[in-house]
């Protein structure tokens, strides 16, 4: 977001920003460590997408993520509240909610990456690794554009990864945090396939609820088109569904240099992949613009430029569809589909085997993941099934009547939906 906001911001904040800019220039020389520059070419070749990298990860999978702040879009309520849309936001109708987050910058030069300060995405890019291979994630902390006074560190916590050593577990009190202007490389040898997630663990309550959350798929050695090393987990299409919550008061407090009282936590927007219904149906973004380095907005939805991950589920009759549910909000949700039978085949990146079960509602608490398969029914014409949170009070956008929140659609066609390249397409 190069466009800046109203003149009332131009006081102490810009003074602080000036100081922050000087710091950034001083720190610039240290931003990219040697381990990353050595492999930058390989990174650029494989990581052009805002969604993810290649769906077929190599055994030597490398990512370069950067963290900063930014502004995203949440529908404006009929009557504005104190906190939403944020009066300091760049635009009350489009980029109106303050956020922290990650960006995949493996395909950007160092200079273009630094130009992306203040432009993050929600949810974070999906990461992939292959069972038996290696995974390196380099994290660069660009600092905050809207809050240059904050010197927060950041980390990557690979949530659920077994036997991570503290040096690569991302809990700053038990490990190291990555300060403003510096980079750090996390290393893993993925073993157990399944759906995992990653999030920042620095001041985790704030940084997680501010949206520093994403998914990691570890693909089984047997096949990239199975959830686990078992043929019964084969799928034709896969969709990531990362649940989250937005407490707009907290976002407002963050932008306005105020503290939070966590015991008053009370979210008012409920998201899938960082969007609320009906935005969940909008197409995917198209990755980093090779010219500017900025994210390319989804077709026709400039306001979702920084929320690039679609949750629209499309498939053909007879397709086996894998839904990878994960919850990094703080509340328990109940994701239901009317009209289809869901088979829960995995929990927390463990194949359930004989304990797999059928249901129409997946109860999912904070920090859990579920791998769910369904077989698309035979339909004569395109047929829609709703996927929504049975906690019906969360199906609204900022208290609006109507339908919003944690909901998306499963659209089954008789045929003609092209084979899937990336998840969520």
């Amino acid at each position, binding site marked *: 977001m190069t466009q800046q906001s109203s003149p009332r911001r131009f006081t102490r904040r810009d003074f602080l920003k000036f100081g922050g800019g000087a710091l950034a220039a001083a720190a610039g020389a240290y931003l990219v*460590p*040697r*381990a*990353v520059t*050595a492999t930058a070419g390989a990174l650029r070749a494989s990581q052009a997408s805002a969604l993810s990298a290649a769906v077929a990860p190599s055994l030597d999978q490398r990512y370069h993520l950067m963290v900063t702040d930014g502004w995203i879009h949440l529908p404006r309520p009929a009557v504005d509240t104190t906190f939403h849309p944020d009066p300091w936001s760049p635009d009350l109708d489009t980029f109106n909610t303050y956020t922290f987050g990650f960006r995949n910058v493996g395909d950007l030069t160092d200079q273009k990456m630094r130009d992306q300060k203040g432009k993050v995405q929600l949810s974070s890019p999906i990461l992939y690794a292959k069972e038996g291979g*290696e995974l390196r994630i*380099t994290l660069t902390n660009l600092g905050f554009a809207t809050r240059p006074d904050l010197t927060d*560190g950041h980390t990557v*916590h690979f*949530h*659920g990864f*077994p*036997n*991570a*050593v*503290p*040096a*690569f*577990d991302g*809990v*700053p*009190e*038990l*490990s*190291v945090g*990555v*300060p403003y202007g*510096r*980079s*750090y*490389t996390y*290393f893993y*040898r993925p*073993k157990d396939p399944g759906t995992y997630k990653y999030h920042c663990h*620095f*001041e*985790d*309550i*704030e940084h*997680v*609820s501010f949206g520093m959350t994403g998914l990691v798929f570890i693909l089984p050695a047997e096949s990239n088109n199975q959830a686990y090393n078992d043929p019964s987990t084969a799928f034709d299409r896969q969709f990531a569904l990362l649940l989250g919550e937005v407490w707009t008061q907290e976002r407002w407090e963050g932008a306005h240099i105020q*503290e*939070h*009282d*966590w*015991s008053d*936590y009370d979210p008012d927007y409920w998201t899938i992949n960082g969007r609320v219904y009906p935005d969940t149906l909008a197409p995917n973004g198209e990755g980093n613009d090779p010219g500017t380095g900025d994210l390319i907005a989804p077709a026709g939805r400039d306001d979702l430029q920084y929320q690039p991950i679609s949750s629209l589920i499309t498939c053909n009759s007879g397709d086996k569809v894998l839904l990878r549910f994960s919850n990094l909000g*703080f509340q*328990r949700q109940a994701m239901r589909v009317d009209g289809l039978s869901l088979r829960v085949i995995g*929990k*927390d*990146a*463990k194949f*359930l085997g004989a*304990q797999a079960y059928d249901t129409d509602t997946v109860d999912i*608490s*904070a*920090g*859990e*993941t579920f791998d769910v398969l369904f077989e698309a029914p035979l339909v004569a014409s395109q047929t829609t099934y709703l996927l929504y949170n049975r906690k019906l009070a969360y199906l609204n956008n900022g208290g609006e009547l109507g339908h919003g929140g944690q909901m998306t659609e499963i659209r089954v066609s008789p045929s003609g939906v092209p084979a899937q390249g990336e998840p969520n397409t």
Partner: protein
Amino acid sequence: MRSLVSKSLRATLLTLTLVLVVVAATPITSLRAQTPGEISIVCENETAPGVYDTTVTLTTQDGYISIPDGNTVYMWGYAYEGGAFQHPGPTLCFNEGDVVDITLSNTTPLYGYTPTGPVAEAVSIVFPGQTGVEVDTGAGFVPAQPQFSGLTLTSLVQPAAAGGSATYHFTASQAGTFIYESGTNPQKQVHMGLFGAIIVRPSDGPTFIYNWPFTQFNPANDYMILLSEIDPDLHWAVEQGLDYNITLYHPRYWLINGRSFPDTIAPNDAEWLPTQPYGALLHIEPFNAGNNAQPSAVRFLNVGMRNHPMHPHGDHIQVVGRDGRPLLGPANENLSYAEFGPVIGAGQTKDTLYDWAAVQLTTPVPPDVFEAFSQFLLRPRDQNIMWGEWFSGSPYLGQTTDRPTGVTAQGECGEYYHIWHSHALHEAANYEAGFGGMITLERIDPPGGCP
């Protein structure tokens, strides 16, 4: 009215404190006095290794606990054999088949609000998961039953009247982990602290959680993670003799074993936490097929009113039992399962096994990664490093690196620390302050332990 009650409570407390000092100086017939600083589960009624007193007396007490933000909170509690107030109630252990008599002596008046003035409340104990419980309140044993006054339910079970006593009798017929808690005005009394844990050792012996081979563990590593919540407004109202509307329940403190992080990692019986005797630090060594083949037992209990989605860093846990029953199918199939997001429901217990099984998965670190790591730590200016107090400075277990000036060192010999916490992250806080609340740590020593 308010000040009168408050004064009477304070006078009681002062007396109790004096008693406490005397009692603490007197050896109790319990093993725990001989093992200060241990961190595994303490069975208060253990008289010799594996031998448990099956006739137990608990008394009602009140007192205060400390919260790491500097607050103190007024509590009620069960105390062991005339001992001082403690929170949570004493952990009691029995062997499968033991015939148990627990006498509750309601000696310390626990004042409840009534419109006409404070009244000392009746107190009771319910034993979820136990069957055939009988109660004697002075007229012989009768089955445990809900109590009514006319059509009004007054208690979930026969209570000990104020100043009176009740004896609860049952056979500990099921191995596993259980809650005991008050059944009288439970929405207030349980919240005020009238709860504790019961562990029943199976007849196969103390190296098993249940009588099934898949529940075997190392009895030196037997841990309890008992979850609870505190709404400080409720406690203040009780302390002041005021009414409280439970529909306004809004917890702001989140505890494990009656402590909030970082107090959770202090040892058992830490002298600076005189009323909160139970630590929650897990302290293990890596799996080794030769000499450390058995996992730890981690017993989760939730005495709060909310579900708590716990998240153990380090590795999955293996859930082998729930609510004091092993996870078995209809033909006794092993239905245990692994998860990294164990949700502990209100009133639920989960028996789990935990191992640090495969350090070699991430070591040795490839040379390029180690080089980048070393460069990261070697920045010339300390403000360019964010170094955690518990971090050894090395990816390798048992190795350390010189830390920057001014960084506190919590480690001893390059051991690993991992966090276990509620992933409803606002519960990992003390009121508004993060990195507190429902958090504990897991400490992994190099093989053989720190020298």
